[in-house]
């Protein structure tokens, strides 16, 4: 037990190393998968969804939390925002679901040299992530978006598409780009990569039971995070409707309401700007800069 705790006692800088490593590598791989063309077969899409083996490997070898969060952040920033594929609130769902899945995968491996354990963990990670995102996508359509009901065929088609893409991602991307590479890489990197970051490898002589890992806290936390993920995703869709409902109540006034509020906002913004310009001029800017440079 004491040795298990030791594994989590990383210094601040070591945590940062893991974070940086995971973020830049997964960001790079995201950029690559983004550039690789996708193949469509009718409505069905065959593509390399992601190189999940990178965060999986790092989560298994290092501190799972920092590696997982780093990878998610890398994906959001280099795979999404930088390439202009950012989807607002929906990305938070991805972020949380992905971090959670990778974290669970990382924490469930006790012995990185045991290929079976690593393989099971890798598949668990992929399945958790894909299941959350598929469920969220389906629920989003079933509960939230009524406009889509008006379009015949779309609701059913989304369920089928999501179901299929879940299977596709788990069986195709999951096995080819998560299971096989992770099982290949983890035992090879174990003991080699840790000294490069100035840490000891994880001690695999410590065995602790599954109950220690899957404690109630982790399960409760996982469910909470999954719900949060769903909430954000749902918000990103239904936030639109919420605002509309509000306006429906005041439909007669809505135009005036919008126009008025915008006018007020513009006036406030204008006044603030003027004030700030004036205030900005008063203290001489050059004096400040001298202070800094001296």
């Amino acid at each position: 037990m004491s040795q298990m705790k030791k594994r989590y006692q990383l210094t601040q800088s070591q945590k940062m190393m893991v974070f940086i490593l995971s973020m830049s590598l997964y960001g790079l791989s995201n950029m690559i998968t983004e550039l690789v063309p996708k193949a469509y077969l009718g409505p069905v899409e065959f593509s390399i969804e992601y190189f999940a083996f990178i965060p999986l490997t790092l989560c298994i070898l290092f501190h799972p939390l920092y590696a997982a969060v780093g990878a998610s952040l890398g994906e959001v920033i280099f795979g999404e925002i930088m390439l202009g594929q950012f989807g607002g609130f929906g990305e938070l769902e991805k972020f949380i679901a992905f971090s959670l899945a990778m974290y669970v995968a990382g924490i469930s491996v006790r012995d990185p040299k045991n290929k079976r354990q690593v393989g099971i963990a890798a598949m668990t990670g992929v399945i958790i992530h894909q299941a959350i995102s598929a469920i969220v996508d389906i629920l989003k359509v079933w509960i939230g978006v009524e406009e889509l009901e008006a379009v015949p065929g779309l609701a059913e088609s989304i369920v089928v598409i999501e179901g299929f893409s879940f299977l596709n991602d788990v069986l195709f991307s999951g096995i080819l780009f998560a299971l096989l590479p992770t099982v290949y890489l983890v035992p090879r990197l174990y003991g080699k990569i840790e000294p490069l970051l100035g840490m000891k490898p994880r001690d695999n002589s410590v065995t602790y039971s599954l109950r220690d890992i899957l404690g109630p806290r982790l399960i409760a936390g996982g469910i909470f995070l999954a719900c949060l993920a769903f909430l954000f995703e749902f918000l990103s869709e239904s936030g639109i409707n919420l605002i509309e409902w509000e306006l429906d109540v005041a439909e007669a006034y809505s135009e005036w309401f919008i126009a008025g509020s915008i006018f007020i906002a513009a006036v406030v913004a204008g006044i603030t700007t003027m004030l700030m310009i004036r205030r900005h001029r008063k203290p001489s800017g050059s004096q400040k800069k001298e202070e800094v440079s001296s």
Partner: protein
Amino acid sequence: MEYARKLSEKLSVEQVKIELLNTAYGNGHTFLAKLDPRTLFILYLLFGVMPWFVHNEKILFGMFVFIAAMTLLAKVSPLILVILCLGLLGQGGYYLIASLFFGGDLSIILPLLELTLKLAVISLASITVFCSMDPEKLSNGLLKIGVPGQVTFSIAYGYRMLPSLLEEYHHVFLSFRLRGKAPEKHGFLYWQAIAYFCKIAVLSFYPLLLSMSKRARTTVEALETKGSLYGFNHPEVKKLKLAHMAFGKRDYLFILFFLSYLASLFLLFT
């Protein structure tokens, strides 16, 4: 497939690397790049979030025109624009085909176009804002709005390192190809060739993982000797570091300009 082949001819790794470097450092002279990062964040907040709540096509179109003009001003690299367009068209087309397949009709095109317009505004906003900031500016801006120092540093570092990482990855990839043996037959639909490339693409990460972790350690140790980790946790140091950031006249005018533009859009079309 023809189109994809043409694209891949233009899309050499060297080119991608140059474009990335350009994105990170090449746009220092544009109008947007001279603004304060916080101004750009406000712009992004408005144009990246508001479209979700807007259902009026005219307003959306007005926003699109504005943000497209900004994109032109920011001199965003064509490669990123191409990726963006492909992504947008791909997604729209995907939903269209899917719903046609399940018995919808062409009436879906209009809502889909609206959705695409929405996504276009949001994506262009993020591209424009990001391309107008170099890594250091971005990290300072994030630090100013309260993101922890470790995270902002990592973002800036990743932003800076991506081009060189890509180059290194390419070298490893090429050396794998050089030493390995490509399959003699392409197989049905090139599947053997594709499988071979996928395998190398995965294997190339092995050396990269090792070299990158070495690099991460060097970086963090250099940070330690510079006392950055101390600075991250102490507000006074942060204040000193960020003292150069200030809203100028240009920022206020620009904020006023796009706010009034948005306001007039809403006034005109609601």
